[in-house]
């Protein structure tokens, strides 16, 4: 049914302050045949990578706004060009914030409604399965995944939210363990329980939860690896 991507070459971008890059590299390296490397923020090219991941962390100490300074790193020009050409770009947590600040994804991640940094498992309902990151999943699947953020409250104005919904750009939504999208299941106040979105073309995807933190049996949860496996299949 699915075939492995030939010569999967994963580049994980490292900004000063990134702290999930090693985990992400490690999990990507578990994919059969994958070559992985870190890409320092000063590099001006992604080389022959065919998958770029912006990891979680606190790039530039979250100064000014989360992701605002990272956007001007030399590597982001290369990431934008790569995305423009249809390359697959994934932003996890801070990586998602960097993608919105770079205008590769719409909206912004505001501080959590509760004012607290939240670190816990949440459930996500898969809303779209025709993009690289979710093509191995089924619509309506419920994934358990940890979040760890202070600014994960997805916001865009009414018009932009309506456009995202109409275009089917909401990829994953916070839900309860049965898949019901409820206010109680929304950890941070995100509009429409949005946990992750893609661009119109579907090749750029950002999410607040951390798939790389739940990708191995030893950690008791491998739901996140389903995202990585999707990225490695056609």
């Amino acid at each position, binding site marked *: 049914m699915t075939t492995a991507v030939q010569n999967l070459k994963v580049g994980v971008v490292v900004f000063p302050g990134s702290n999930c890059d090693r985990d992400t590299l490690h999990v990507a390296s578990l994919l059969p045949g994958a070559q992985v490397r870190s890409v320092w923020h000063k590099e001006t090219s992604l080389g022959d990578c065919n998958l770029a991941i912006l990891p979680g962390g606190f790039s530039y100490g979250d100064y*000014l*706004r989360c992701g*605002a300074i990272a956007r*001007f790193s030399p590597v982001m020009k290369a990431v934008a060009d790569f995305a423009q050409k249809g390359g697959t770009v994934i932003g996890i947590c801070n990586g998602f914030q960097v993608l*919105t*600040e770079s205008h590769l994804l719409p*909206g*912004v991640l*505001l*501080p*959590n*409604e*509760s*004012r607290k940094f939240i670190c816990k498992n949440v459930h996500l309902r898969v809303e779209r399965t025709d993009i690289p990151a979710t093509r191995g999943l089924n619509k309506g699947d419920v994934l358990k995944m940890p979040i760890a953020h202070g600014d994960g*409250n997805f*916001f*865009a*104005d009414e018009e932009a939210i309506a456009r995202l919904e109409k275009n089917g750009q909401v990829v994953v939504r916070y839900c309860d363990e049965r898949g019901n999208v409820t206010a109680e299941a929304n950890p941070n*106040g995100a509009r429409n329980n949005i946990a992750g979105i893609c661009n119109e073309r579907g090749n750029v995807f950002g999410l607040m939860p951390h798939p790389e933190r739940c990708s191995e049996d030893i950690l008791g949860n491998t739901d996140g690896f389903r995202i990585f496996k999707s990225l490695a299949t056609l």
Partner: protein
Amino acid sequence: MKTQVTVTLKNGILDPQGKAVEHALHSLGFAGVRGVRIGKFIEIEMDAPATEQAKKDAEEMCKKLLANPVMENYRVTVAEQGK
């Protein structure tokens, strides 16, 4: 030339920090406090031949970096010549 930039949250954007301060002010007895919004104040020292140029440059900086138009407004004021 000294340029001052004030970045504020747009109306309707939740400001949890402002809310927390509002509650603290209430508990201090300032019962009349109706709302608190917290923004950023940025002071920029720059070389510019004229006030208009400094203002224009600062506005450009706001658009490109200092403010995010999805959630913030900005206001630029240039201190008159001198210190």
